[in-house]
């Protein structure tokens, strides 16, 4: 799997939180796993955390706890929790994704009786969802890694230069997550890159694999470029070929890679994604949070620009078909605008609710449990809103923008002869 977040970064184990009445709150986190493993992993980490709380390192006592009546009752509760996780995931990702493209980490929160280890309140959960490429959680895009593609040109390989660079650049446009670095001369490249160059051939490096790019004479006497794929020739005749080759070698599906905003430069996307992840990681205050997210999404500006483009288009002479298409676009834009207003309000309401419940808890107007239940409810709904905003952004900046620009680029109809 390329680019998914490594599981090796150790997480800080949270201390059990004593909430009085002989109860503690535990927050066990599962490892990253496939969809089918969720139920088993949730059982394992929660039961393990409870046993650890009660008996520390005493293996014998832990063993007998796993077989106890309390543990069996806990398992029933955890089964319900796992089914909630499954139904949540069904609602969140199954509509647009192949479940095999994803892995998950479940974060749980269980309130446990300190004496006998009984789970005393409904457990809560959150799920981090990882795609094959980059890290996409239920709350939005958190981080992203690139597939590194290097192209190392050989000395004197003039034939390969502009054309190869052109097709690779085209490929980069196709796959938004490819970072393409061309080196015209291996001697000018960093040492790590130089070692990947194959003999004196121009070399295409995809991830960790290097492929020589060569020239061959065809039967009709013309020369053609091909990639030496372990003895198999992969001819490059146009842009599509290189896209196919990159896709084949990286194992990345174009439809997954294209979920990010189209038409934006990689730098801008980086900034947007950083901003979104900042809000997720809670590095900014809640007040600034919704402003930053809404601003980083940039939908106000995008919708405004599209409205302006449509208005300009309407001033041109248009065929009947185009008039109908413009009207169609206008309808879609109005609907996107409405969705955006609604989601923006939803997001702000959630932020407001969060500060309110915190205030209520701090002033002892609600109990810790009430605070926690409300907070998780709000966070979950805010996470969904955030995801809808990101999807709307992709729709407006991608699909709608491309359709409107396609309309703009159509030539004006010829005037009918009188």
């Amino acid at each position, binding site marked *: 799997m390329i680019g998914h977040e490594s599981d090796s970064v150790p997480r800080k184990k949270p201390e059990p939180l004593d909430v009085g009445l002989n109860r503690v709150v535990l927050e066990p986190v599962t490892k990253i796993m496939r969809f089918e493993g969720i139920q088993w992993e949730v059982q394992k980490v929660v039961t393990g955390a409870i046993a650890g709380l009660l008996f520390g390192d005493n293996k014998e006592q832990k063993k007998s706890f796993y077989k106890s009546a309390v543990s069996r009752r806990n398992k029933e509760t955890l089964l319900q929790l796992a089914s909630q996780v499954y139904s949540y995931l069904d609602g969140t990702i199954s509509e647009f994704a192949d479940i095999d493209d994803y892995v998950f980490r479940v974060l749980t929160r269980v309130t446990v009786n300190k004496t006998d280890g009984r789970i005393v309140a409904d457990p809560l959960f959150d799920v981090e969802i990882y795609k094959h490429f980059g890290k996409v959680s239920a709350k939005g895009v958190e981080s992203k890694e690139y597939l590194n593609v290097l192209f190392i040109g050989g000395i004197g390989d003039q034939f390969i230069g502009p054309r190869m660079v052109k097709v690779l650049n085209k490929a980069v446009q196709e796959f938004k997550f490819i970072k393409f670095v061309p080196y015209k001369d291996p001697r000018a490249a960093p040492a790590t890159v130089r070692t990947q160059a194959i003999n004196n051939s121009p070399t295409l490096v995809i991830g960790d694999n290097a492929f020589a790019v060569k020239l061959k004479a065809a039967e009709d006497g013309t020369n053609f470029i091909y990639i030496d794929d372990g003895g198999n020739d992969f001819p490059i005749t146009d842009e599509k070929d290189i896209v196919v080759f990159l896709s084949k070698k990286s194992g990345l599906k174009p439809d997954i890679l294209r979920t990010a905003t189209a038409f934006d430069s990689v730098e801008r996307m980086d900034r947007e994604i950083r901003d979104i992840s900042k809000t997720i990681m809670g590095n900014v205050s809640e007040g600034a949070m919704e402003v930053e997210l809404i601003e980083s999404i940039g939908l*106000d500006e995008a919708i405004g620009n599209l409205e302006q483009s449509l208005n300009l288009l309407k001033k041109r002479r248009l065929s009947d078909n185009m008039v109908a298409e413009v009207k169609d676009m206008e309808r879609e834009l109005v609907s996107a605008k409405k969705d955006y*207003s609604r989601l923006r*309000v939803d997001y702000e309401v959630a932020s407001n609710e969060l500060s*309110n419940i915190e205030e209520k808890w701090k002033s002892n107007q609600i109990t810790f449990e009430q605070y926690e239940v*409300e907070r998780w409810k709000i966070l979950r709904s805010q996470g969904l809103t955030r995801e809808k905003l990101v999807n709307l952004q992709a729709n407006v900046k991608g699909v709608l923008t491309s359709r409107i620009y396609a309309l703009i680029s159509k030539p004006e109809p010829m005037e009918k002869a009188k």
Partner: protein
Amino acid sequence: MDFEITVEEIDKLVNQVNQAIGEVNDVVVRRELEFMKARLADMRVALLELENVEDKYLRGDVTTDNYFDRRKKLVRDFFIARDQILDTVVPNVTERASSSEVKGQLIKFKELLKDNKKFIDAGIDFVLTVVKSFIVH
């Protein structure tokens, strides 16, 4: 939760809008100002209701769930009314302006009105700019 806006401040802004309605000659702009006044009234009602619900909750007259539910609806009403002013009134009034300079001045208020802290001051400035731009002497 403090909204950074009080009922008294909204009243002050409504007074300003009332005066502007009487002074502006453009029918469309006047209609937009009336729409703004109606939305300010919505915000005012939401704030008063919020105070009321809060009070009832503190006295124990409503359950916690009920309180959270009602509060959420009122907060939503408040933000929807505010957003209608910045999403509808500001662009529609801006469109009526004759010069690009005035248009530039007016559209800036869309950003300023988003911030609750600046809402009242920006609202008053907006109304004053509208009056200045749409009065025919």
